[in-house]
Every structure is written in C-alpha cells, then in structure tokens.
C-alpha cells in the first residue's frame, strides 16, 4: 500500500475524531463525521490498488484494480450523503425549536 495514502488516512481520521469530540457546533460535528468516513473509505480504496492497474471499468491498459472495494465505497458515499442530508434536516428543525446549533445545549433528555 502507498505510504502517502496511509498517512492521509491517519490524518483525516484523527482530524475527524478531533472535530466530533471538540467542536460544539452541530454542523461541525457532522463535518467531522464526514471526514472520518472519508478516511475509512480512502483506506479501503488504497488497499484495492494493484500496481500498474487501471480503473476497473474497461481495462484499457493491462488489468484493473480490485473492483469490490470501489463498489463498496460508492455505496458508502451514497449512504454518507444521505446521512449528511438527514443530519442537516435534523439540525435545522432543532434550530427552529431551540434557536441554537450548540450540541451541548441539546440536553433536554438526560438521566
């Protein structure tokens, strides 16, 4: 596997983790989630790389890389986009009620 990909994955994942643990704005939490998801998907795609490989649609030069991770990644990206949209809908509805997007202030349900 390519070292650069590894490093990027590690950086992205930790950035995402840091964001969701530290940031109080709900939008930033969701962005953090997306970052973490991108990291995992990048890890998966990077693993699929075979040296001298080409896109696994119609291999014009030599063989294609492993297609299964690509399929899974596409699915996961779609699911991620859906989650994102839903998250934004929730935040906006909550904002309508609570007039804030501070995650720490959503504390009606406790105990």
């Amino acid at each position: 596997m390519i070292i650069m990909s590894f490093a990027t994955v590690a950086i992205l994942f930790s950035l995402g983790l840091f964001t969701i643990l530290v940031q109080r704005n709900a939008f930033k939490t969701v962005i953090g989630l997306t970052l973490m998801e991108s990291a995992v998907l990048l890890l998966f795609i990077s693993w699929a790389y075979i040296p001298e490989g080409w896109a696994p649609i119609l291999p014009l030069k030599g063989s294609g890389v492993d297609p299964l991770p690509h399929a899974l990644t596409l699915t996961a990206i779609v699911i991620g986009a859906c989650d994102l949209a839903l998250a934004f809908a929730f935040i906006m509805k909550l904002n309508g009620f609570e007039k804030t997007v501070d995650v720490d202030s959503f504390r009606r349900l406790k105990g």
Partner: protein
Amino acid sequence: MVQRYFIFTADRRVLALLAGILVLAAAVYGQGYFKKTGERRFFSGFLFLFLLTVLGAVFSALWLGFLIFIELSTVALFILIAMKERNVAFRYLAVQLAGAAFLLAGIAGAGIKGPVLFGPVQPPFFPLLLAGLGVKSALLGLHFWLPEAHGKSPAPVSALLSGIAVKTGVFGLLLLTGGAYVPSLSAAGAAMALWGAFQALLQRDVKRLLAYSTISQLGYIVAALGAGGVLSVPAVLYHAVTHGLSKGMLFFCAGILEKAYGTKDFSRLGGAAERLPGTCILFFIAAASMIGLPGTAGFASKALLKASLIDFPLVSACLLVANIGTAMVFCKMSAFAFGGVQKSRYLHSPECFRFMNAGTAVLAPLLLFSGFFPGILPAFLGSTGHSFYTVPKCGESLLAAVCGVFLFLFLKKRLRASATRVRDIDVMSERFPNMIGNGARIVQRLQGGFLRGYLLTAALTALILMHLFS
C-alpha cells in the same frame, strides 16, 4: 408425572398439615378482620392460592420446583400484604427475590448434569444455597427484613408469614444439610435465639415484639438443625409446627387488640383482660406454649429440641437463657396489653370479634392435644421412645418460666413501653433501597445529555477493546 416432581414423605406431610390449618384459621379470621365483602373475597382467594403454592413447595422433589413454588408463595404473600401496606409488601418482595437469586445460582450450579433432587448438595454450591435460604428463613444477619415485614403486615398475613413462610425456608435448610453437623449453623442459631429475645423485650410495638420472638424461636430451630444427628429432623419439625400454631394465635390476638383499641403501641394498650376475655384465654394458651409450660405442645417440642442438643452444652445453655428471655417477653405482653389499666378508648363491642376469636380458637385444640399426647407427632415422623413428662424436664421448664416471671417483675419499670432502642440490622431494610437509589443516581450521571461525552466513551472503549484483543 406427579411421582417425578412431588414426594409425599411424612416430614413433608407434617408441614403441609401446618400450612393447611394455618390457612384455614386465617380464612376464618379474615372474615372478621376485613370489613368489605370484596376485600374478604380477595383475601380468601389469594389465601387459597398461597396454600397451593406452599403445598407445591413442601412436596416438591426437585430444588427447582421448590424454588418456583417458593417464589410463587412470595408473590401471593406480596399481594396479600399489599392489600393494606404497599411499601412493606414491595420491600418484602424485593428482598425475597434478591435471596432467590442466590438460590437460583446455587441450584443451577448443582444441576449442571441434570435436575437436582431436593436434598443435600455438593460443597461448592452449598454457600449459595445457604445464603438464599438464609434470607427466606431469616438467619442471623439476613433477618433485617423480618421485623418490618412481620410487624407491619395485616395480622392474618403476619400469622402466615411467621407461621409457615419462614418454615418453608427452614425446611429447605433441613433438606440441604440432610442431618449433617454444621457447627456454624448451631452457633448462629444460639445467637439468633438470644438476640431475638433481647430485642423483643425492648419493643414498643406488639407485632414487632412478636416478630422478634419469631427470630428467637427460629434460632432454636436452626440450632437443632445445625446439631445434626438422628433427633434433629423430628425436633426441628415439631418445633416448627408448635411455633407456627402458637405464633399464629399470638398474631391473631395482636390483630384483635389492634382492631379493638386502634393501636399497636404498648404505651397505649392495657386492660384487655376484662373486655376481651376469650382473646385473653387464647393468648395465655399460646403464650404458655411459647414459653414451654408443661401441658402444651411447646413443652414437648422444647424437650425434644433439648434432647437433640444434648451433646452441645454451650448451645443448650444459650437456649435456656433465651427461654428465660422468652418468658419475660410474654410476661411483658400480658402485663402491658392484657393487664393493667385501660388507656385507649375501646372501639368495638365484643360480638364483632366472633370470627376473629373463632379463627384463633381453631389453632388452640391442636396445641393442647399435642401437649397432652406429646409422643404422637414424633412417632409419625418415625422417632419413638421419648418420655416427655419426666420430673427433670418439667422442673427445668417450670424453673425457666418462674425465673422469667421474677426477672420481669424485677425489671418491670425498665421494660415499660418507653424503653430505649438497641439498634438492629433491620435499619438495613430502609437503607438498602437508599443504597440502590444512590447507585442508580451514579449510573444516571453517565447519561448526562452531552453528545460529545457519549462519543468520547465510544471512542475510548474502541481503543480499549483493540488493546484487549491483540
């Protein structure tokens, strides 16, 4: 199917007889105790269910069957107590179910190969079963629930509790040890007998006094149980029956006093002998049996107990002291409740107590019969050749009674209703719910509503798990 799950040996039939008589008496008593027809019907119905569950427990051939029927009898008693006192019923149920947890674990452990017969169990699981049965039969240290439960329930239910419910626990202990010598049980029994009598002397409340007296008498039973030997089974069962009948009568009398004067407090009772003559006579019969005067069943059962403890002089001495204490206790009850000057307004006319007196009277004949023909019950259990009415035995019991009376008269001023309290472990009965509530509050703090906190917990746990698995 019946043969696989139930056994009908003599010792079980004796307990079943006790249960049946007590339930019958309670049913009659309940007709007078409860005012509304609906309540009376409800009471009789669940009383019958309770009888069925106790019979199922006593005749069970497997530990699991015993446990199931005991839990069902607990639920039946819970419903009966809850008719009048909800919190007491709730605490009783919670404690009994907690004890049942130990029983379940022990039975599961012993029953890996197959269902366990209701009898002795291998050593590793003995403590678990002991703990579970100890809660049910109020062993020393695990008796914290008894004063409140027996003291505050409605009178007929207290009679059942003291009369038969704890006896099923004792029966389980009896079959668990199987006649072996368990020194710790003997010691615990002696301690219980002394402690129970001591605490009973200091109570202000009639029913709490009787509850502590139950602990004391259970101590006698457990001491004989721990001693082992050939005589332990008949002694234990005989005393269980006697105590059940007499304590049942005493609780019924206490209920009559409560209904008559509207109070259970000794400082406000008094002078019942003139107003309630029938009750007074029944009370004296029961008290005489508890003290162990010759002519009552108590004398015979105590004689048999002492015979089974012949090789344990220390335990016998403790029981003798406890006997003196018991005599003092019932002197106290008769002096302050039945004797003396009337302090509270009398609420009802004696005709109202027809049913209640009748219910109490149901139990009396067997006590007297057993007293005059003491050999019949042990013979039924297979133990013959006892001579009960010998001079040394009669002398011993009369001596204990007379000592008790003298000591009581000597200390009468101190034992007035407003005596000091010695703290007992029964405060745990209130503390346990608080402790669990505090534990709950701590766990509840984790659910603070902070999303970031939840995320941090998840991330940390993932890290820990990764470390653990590699």
